[in-house]
């Protein structure tokens, strides 16, 4: 059965309006004429349809920067934080014992995120494997169960984009919920997941079957999208350079000199998942929260007694790239990078995947990576 339809552009507002009835509709909105960001859509007409290729990652809807995990109600047994209170005083909560007081704060809100890109959908596929294989992460799982992505085929990639070399964009053959291709006056609509198909079929009166001309136009868009990429990057050649020992520590030392330790590459990466856990002690409860964390900080692996196993910055940069270029393929058979280019947008020191991969490409076979 064909899962392809045509949606006239002047029907899209109506469609989104209907979808919003039982979901929080998140879409790209222009903030006072400046940035385009994903926000809850209040006015459907404000959704930006000609959005820039690269927006902040929608990872935050599945794995937010600050997430409350558990709440332990302690009915007044925890001392009130007064002047001078700074950290949790040891042993304060030893009396808290009843299991009935524990609340699981997993977010179960139903969301529809409109306007994400194929690279992000590809990233979510990998996040699913990371969070849901082995032990299942319940916070991710609840959010994931309740989210639907409507992605848009990229026909105007940013200069930082390189999904084309990874097969993670600019369009996908499968593995998405609903994928739209902009054909000018209409969208070519494809649905892949069960929820995506159901969502389209629920309002089948808005859609029509595609004709030959529609298919031709869609193919045209795909072709022109592929032609517009500035960056052609093979992470496979980077991986080989590493595995074959051509990337020496001096290379990592040199690129690391410019690291500002901001964590931006990790925070922006649609695939980075590290977090830390902290307890916040309120007068009536303790909240266990998790926060985005990054392996690029020396304290990330700090051991008892202040020992820093990754004290050198160079080791941490190397670890990040090894994880994405070497270890991901070993475990998941895919790179830990979807070519979205966000690290290039955010890194103040220009230590991003595309730049590093390009530099590795320039390494001589004899290992003389030191260039003037």
């Amino acid at each position, binding site marked *: 059965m064909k899962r392809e339809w045509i949606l006239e552009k002047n029907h899209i507002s109506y469609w989104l309006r209907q979808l919003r009835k039982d979901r929080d509709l998140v879409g790209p909105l222009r903030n006072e004429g400046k940035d385009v960001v994903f926000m809850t859509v209040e006015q459907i007409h404000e959704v930006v349809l000609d959005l820039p290729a690269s927006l902040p990652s929608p990872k935050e809807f599945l794995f937010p920067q600050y997430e409350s995990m558990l709440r332990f109600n302690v009915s007044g047994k925890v001392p009130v934080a007064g002047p001078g209170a700074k950290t949790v005083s040891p042993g304060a909560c030893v009396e808290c014992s009843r299991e009935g007081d524990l609340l*699981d704060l997993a977010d179960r809100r139903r969301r529809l995120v409109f306007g994400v890109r194929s690279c992000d959908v590809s990233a979510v596929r990998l996040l699913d494997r990371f969070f849901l294989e082995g032990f299942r992460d319940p916070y991710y799982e609840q959010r994931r169960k309740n989210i639907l992505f409507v992605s848009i085929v990229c026909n105007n990639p940013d200069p930082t984009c390189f999904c084309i070399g990874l097969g993670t964009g600019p369009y996908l053959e499968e593995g998405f919920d609903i994928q739209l291709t902009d054909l000018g006056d209409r969208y070519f609509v494809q649905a892949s997941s069960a929820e995506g198909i159901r969502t389209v079929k629920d309002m089948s009166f808005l859609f029509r079957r595609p004709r030959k001309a529609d298919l031709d136009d869609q193919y045209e868009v795909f072709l022109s999208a592929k032609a517009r990429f500035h960056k052609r990057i093979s992470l496979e050649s980077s991986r080989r350079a590493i595995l074959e020992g051509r990337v020496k520590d001096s290379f990592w030392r040199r690129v690391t000199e410019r690291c500002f330790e901001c964590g931006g590459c990790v925070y922006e990466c649609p695939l980075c998942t*590290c977090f*830390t*856990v902290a307890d916040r002690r309120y007068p009536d409860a303790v909240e266990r929260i998790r926060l985005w964390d990054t392996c690029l900080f020396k304290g990330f692996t700090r051991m008892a007694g202040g020992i820093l*196993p990754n004290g050198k910055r160079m080791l941490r940069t190397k670890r990040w790239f090894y994880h994405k270029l070497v270890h991901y393929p070993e475990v998941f058979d895919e790179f830990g990078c979807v070519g979205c280019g966000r690290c290039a947008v955010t890194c103040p020191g220009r230590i991003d995947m595309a730049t590093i991969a390009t530099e590795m490409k320039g390494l001589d076979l004899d290992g003389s990576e030191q260039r003037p």
Partner: protein
Amino acid sequence: MTRSSSGNVYVPFGGKVEVVIPQARDISLFRVKTEAPLDYAPGQFFMVSLWGAGEVPISVASLSRDDAVVDLCIRRAGAVTGALHALEAGDTVWLRGPYGNGFPLDTSRGRDVVLVAGGIGLAPLRPLIEWFMENPGDAGRVTLLYGAKSPGEIVFRDEMEQWRDRGIEVLVTVDRAEGGWEGRTGLVTGLWQELRSDLQQATAYICGPEVMIRAAMGELFLLGMPEERIITTLEAHMKCGVGKCGHCYAGPRYICTDGPVFSYREVKSYGLFLSR
């Protein structure tokens, strides 16, 4: 794995501290009793927490029996372990787990066993000692080589006689002899020649500070013990225990879910030693 009814792997369950047995300065053994029986294996760990202080991974220091009890040997080293040290009998402590792979007892079946421990690193090996005592046919000769900084820092001192009585050879050495110590001094890795086992045929289980593990593994290998029978358990910063938070990620492996027990072969090929 966890006993939470919600299916949320991060939800801990409560246990009562039955008794606190001081072992050395800043090291105590906490015997924790839970409502339902606990099923854990030597080498596994629990995420242990107090609300408001946080969670830390602690290896089991006892052998799992049908009595819903686990021994946790804890050194005061930071905010959470500091808070745990304030616990007294009757207090509640929170647990998740057990997690991790545990010691591969198959590798020592029918063989001589060398247990090498340094400092509080004896705690994760204690369940192995108990196992070998209670299952004397499982392995051949079992020898414990234990090193501590000073006589005052020896843990489980009271139990060593009992271990000896039940067939475990126990050799103890200290870095600094103090307070009338008449036993051995020097590094634990200086005790190989006192062993009466054929190292090429034996299995080693090692736990202690990383420098000690590193030295012991390397030397046993040079003495002819095959890499896959030199086994250790590693320590790492952890926030989740279930392979998600990323802190213990080393090489392509997570210490929490792929370990914490690894053979020398794995340690070398994955580059698992943290200090580089």
